[in-house]
């Protein structure tokens, strides 16, 4: 009266199709993009702040791995508990002049696009360049001092 087997066959077909969509497409995508990506990208060069800003709020290794967790914890404290300290998202911009050269360069290379600065202010490159010209700070590329400020003048 009721052909179970036939239904099952079709169900398997649909399930297989869904599996292809869900599993194979992302895998395939990453394989293909890897094949055609060309030589591996070098590690992103980050623009470091001037030498006189030696200390970040935590040591470098910690910040490299966990800065987002730190920011999230601080966010939770400030927004939900009203505990405001010296460390906040506006503090980053005091030393790291260029979001383009610091945050985004690393985020882009790992395909991450956090949207913090859609709402929080991060100065425009030209604005920062102005500030640096005034104070005489230099941007540093991996410890080397460079005279020209890359990407900062907004030209």
């Amino acid at each position, binding site marked *: 009266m009721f052909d179970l087997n036939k239904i099952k066959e079709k169900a398997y077909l649909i*399930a297989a199709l869904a599996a292809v969509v869900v599993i194979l497409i992302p895998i395939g995508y990453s394989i293909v993009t890897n094949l055609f990506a060309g030589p591996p990208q070098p590690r992103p060069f980050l623009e470091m702040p001037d030498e006189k800003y030696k200390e970040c709020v935590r040591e470098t290794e910690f910040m490299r791995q966990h800065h987002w967790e*730190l920011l999230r914890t601080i966010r939770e*404290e400030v927004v*939900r508990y009203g505990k405001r300290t010296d460390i906040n998202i506006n503090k980053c911009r005091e030393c790291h002049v260029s979001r383009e050269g610091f945050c985004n360069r690393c985020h882009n290379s790992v395909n991450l696009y956090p949207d913090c600065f859609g*709402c929080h202010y991060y100065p425009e490159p030209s604005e920062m360049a102005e500030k640096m010209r005034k104070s005489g700070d230099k941007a540093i590329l991996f410890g080397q001092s460079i005279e020209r400020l890359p990407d900062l003048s907004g030209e």
Partner: protein
Amino acid sequence: MERRDFIKIAGGTFLAGSACAYAFRFLTASNIDGLIVENLTTGRKYGMVIDLTKCIPGCTACVEACHNENNVIHSGDKRWDIHWLRKVTIENKLSPEVGKKEVLLLCNHCDKPPCAQVCPVQATYKRHDGIVIVDHHRCIGCRYCVIACPYNARMFNFKSEEEWHNKDHPKRSHGVAEACTLCAHRLDKDQPPACVEACRNVGTGAIVVGDLNDPRSEISKLVESRAVKRLKEDLGTDPKVHYIGL
């Protein structure tokens, strides 16, 4: 292995895996430094007194100060403009001959806030010190709180603001709800809210914000000594904005 069994095992593993992933999210979401301490302002209960008898007709200093301080969108379109603080003219329904009066309307920071009750993600919540705030990192934009607020105090970011008025304070993206925060970011640093400061600068001092729990504070004395009214007290929301001379 039969196909049936395989599917059962695979499905089971998948379900268990997703449960683990879910649990993992919870674990990683906990704070890393153990930094969260108890709220600094616990024990306080912020409230506001607006003395309408002092308020200058036509003056909008506080409104402008609020909008500039908090980067509130005001593009000039009535439908989508946001007003954390607004000045309205009222008239008695039964006896209009009494004359018109100007009143400031804002979020009342209800002690039993219906807006926080209905928020599905606890984005709107009451702080320990009684300030009702929206966590814009969490709000999903369902607009249920806009509907639940009986004072029309809550508004929704249909558009986002283009300009930065106050660069130390964030704006909001479009798609989240917001209302007056009693300038919590300033109160936490023991500064008066922007509207209070603006009102003082005009020379009026009609708006007072302070701790209702502290009997020696200016606001407690005002509430104690003057005839204060609150809006829609019959609803039981227990608003904390008091009006003198309403």
